[in-house]
């Protein structure tokens, strides 16, 4: 009886929440469906739903309907803005846990979120597809806290340097970014989350500086890295610090820079525009990043954790990986993508799905340092970034 009451209350709470979300996001569509008389039938047959609050690039749009029919759980996607600062604030001090069941966040904040009690551990026995995840992705350092599995690696890739071989020849080191001969012809990202780790990797691997973990710098290590960046900035080394996809593409396409740290899709876009652009495999390694799926505490409060587990299992089942790879070049780290493509060759080309997986796997076969959106000294990172800006 208690269980029934709990379920009924959770369902009622869930319904109110969904109503609110529908009113905010899709009221018009709901009204038009109701007008066509489709609403009652749709509601009668609709699968369980899960409110998925994630980075916008994880949205597969209209394909969610196909996903729902295969998995039995219909996700309601909401963009979280990607910036983990406001996300954490809304989870800890706002209403995010009232509204959302599952989060898709940049890796690194799990420790903080678990400490705050805003996320709860996954039960891996309810996610059979977890076994199919490649081992190196299972080994991402942020997934487990205090022996419990708090996040599932759902999307992974690794970043390095975009460069023009016609100007620079073959580039295989972050040293190119700090090469005086390229003064004013290089750029980095306008974010400490990326630029500090790239610099730390270079200093650790090529300059033998005493840096333990480039993704989580101590106070003295951070000082060393940032002083190095400040010196190069003062020397006029950087053309600019870039921000966002369009700016990144423009820097390459309009030949503003010959090399810059950044995302691999910019290389593909540059090539589309007829430019000779390459993506380096640096000796210092790649900056690995993961967008991990977490179970929000609110899902537990509302009793929808089973649906959430089914949903995450579905993310790893193949369709989601194939679609995300096709639309954005992102990788879900499992062989289920290729298996799904082979079963559905009219939908996805198995050889393309295989090639994407092999390409990313090759990056992770070498040295990789994981991006960390919440290093222990995160407020100190901001302070140093201000010093860099003002240098």
């Amino acid at each position, binding site marked *: 009886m208690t269980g029934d009451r709990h379920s009924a209350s959770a369902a009622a709470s869930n319904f109110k929440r969904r109503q609110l979300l529908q009113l905010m996001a899709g009221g018009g569509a709901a009204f038009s469906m109701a007008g066509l008389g489709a609403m009652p039938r749709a509601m009668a047959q609709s699968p369980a739903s899960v409110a998925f609050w994630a980075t916008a690039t994880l949205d597969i749009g209209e394909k969610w309907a196909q996903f729902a029919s295969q998995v039995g759980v219909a996700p309601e996607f909401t963009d979280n803005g990607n910036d983990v600062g406001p996300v954490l604030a809304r989870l800890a001090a706002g209403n995010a846990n009232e509204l959302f069941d599952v989060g898709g966040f940049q890796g690194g904040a799990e420790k903080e979120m678990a400490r*705050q009690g805003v996320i709860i551990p996954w039960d891996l026995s309810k996610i059979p597809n977890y076994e199919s995840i490649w081992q190196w992705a299972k080994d991402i350092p942020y997934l487990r806290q205090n022996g419990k599995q708090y996040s599932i690696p759902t999307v992974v890739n690794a970043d390095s340097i975009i460069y023009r071989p016609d100007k620079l020849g073959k580039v295989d080191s972050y040293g190119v970014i700090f090469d005086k001969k390229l003064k004013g012809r290089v750029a980095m990202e306008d974010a400490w989350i990326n630029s500090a780790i790239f610099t730390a990797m270079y200093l650790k691997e090529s300059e033998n500086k005493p840096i333990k973990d480039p993704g989580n710098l101590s106070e003295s290590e951070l000082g060393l890295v940032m002083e190095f960046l400040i010196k190069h900035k003062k020397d006029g080394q950087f053309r600019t610090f870039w921000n966002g996809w369009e700016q990144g593409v423009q820097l390459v396409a309009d*030949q503003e820079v010959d090399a810059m740290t950044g995302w691999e899709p910019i290389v593909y876009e540059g090539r589309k525009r007829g430019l000779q652009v390459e993506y380096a495999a640096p000796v210092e390694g790649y900056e690995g990043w993961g967008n991990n799926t977490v179970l929000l505490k609110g899902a537990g409060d509302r009793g929808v954790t089973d649906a959430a587990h089914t949903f995450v299992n579905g993310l790893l089942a193949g369709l989601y990986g194939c679609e995300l790879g096709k639309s954005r070049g992102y990788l879900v780290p499992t062989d289920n993508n290729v298996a799904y493509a082979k079963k559905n060759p009219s939908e996805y080309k198995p050889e393309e799905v295989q090639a994407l997986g092999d390409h990313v796997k090759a990056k992770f076969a070498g040295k990789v340092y994981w991006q960390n959106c919440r290093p222990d000294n995160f407020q100190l990172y901001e302070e140093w970034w201000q010093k860099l800006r003002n240098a």
Partner: protein
Amino acid sequence: MNRRLPPAFALMALPLLAILVLGFLPLMVVVVWSVWTWDPLTYWIRPDFNLGSYAAILEAGRWMVIVSTLGKALLTALICLLIGWPTAYAVHFLAGRRLSLILLALMTVPFFTSYLIRSFSWRLVLGRTGVVNDLLIHLGLLSAPLDWLLFSNFAVLVGLVASCLPFATFPLLLSMRRVDPVLLVAAEDLGAGFWTRLSTIVVPLTMPGIFAGFLFVFVMVVGSSTEVQMLGGAGASIVSVMINDVMRVANYPLAFAISSVVLLVIFSVVLAGNARFGLARLFGEGQS
């Protein structure tokens, strides 16, 4: 007179309430929260009085960002006035009715697109392979592109002036409509030349418009970020960018302290300017 007070008061109540609730209250919240303390346990602020955030403004060069933002705002506003005043004069006094309408319409054209696109398009104009460098090289005036045209303070100023110019021009036009042409004719009849009429009649009478235009641009630049992020050099900053950086690491009291300092500066400028130039005259009161 007294009998008319209640309906007048009733009419005033709603806008007054709107100003208090939508304008004054949030500003007060910002000021109060700026002296509270951030609690890493709850990820929120608690009401423990603390001036640490104001002290932090003096660290990491944050005060320099505030000063340079005010400098950019001042310079942009002055440039906009230097361009906007003759433009408004030409539109109002020299152009015919049809031409002035066309000119006014042209001024609004840039606003048909988003501010993001407007700023981004300057990268295509000022870049190494942009229109300006291409033209100069084509004309044989340069052998290599000028790097400082883009990702520099120059580029930021160009972007800001282009974005803000209409906000200076329209108040100036409004103020010029308050200049009685009879005064100018009389002055001319008495032998005053063009520059004398300009400096002794038109400029003094358009002072409220000059200050209003200045204020609009000044405030807009203080609150802007796109132009600096798109056109500025490596790590270029402005107050809004700095507040974003600080919010990203959840340092809310510091973000509110920076906002409070900027608010104080803006209020001071408004009050001082209003006392000196009388903004109300722009709308017809206290016409001299």
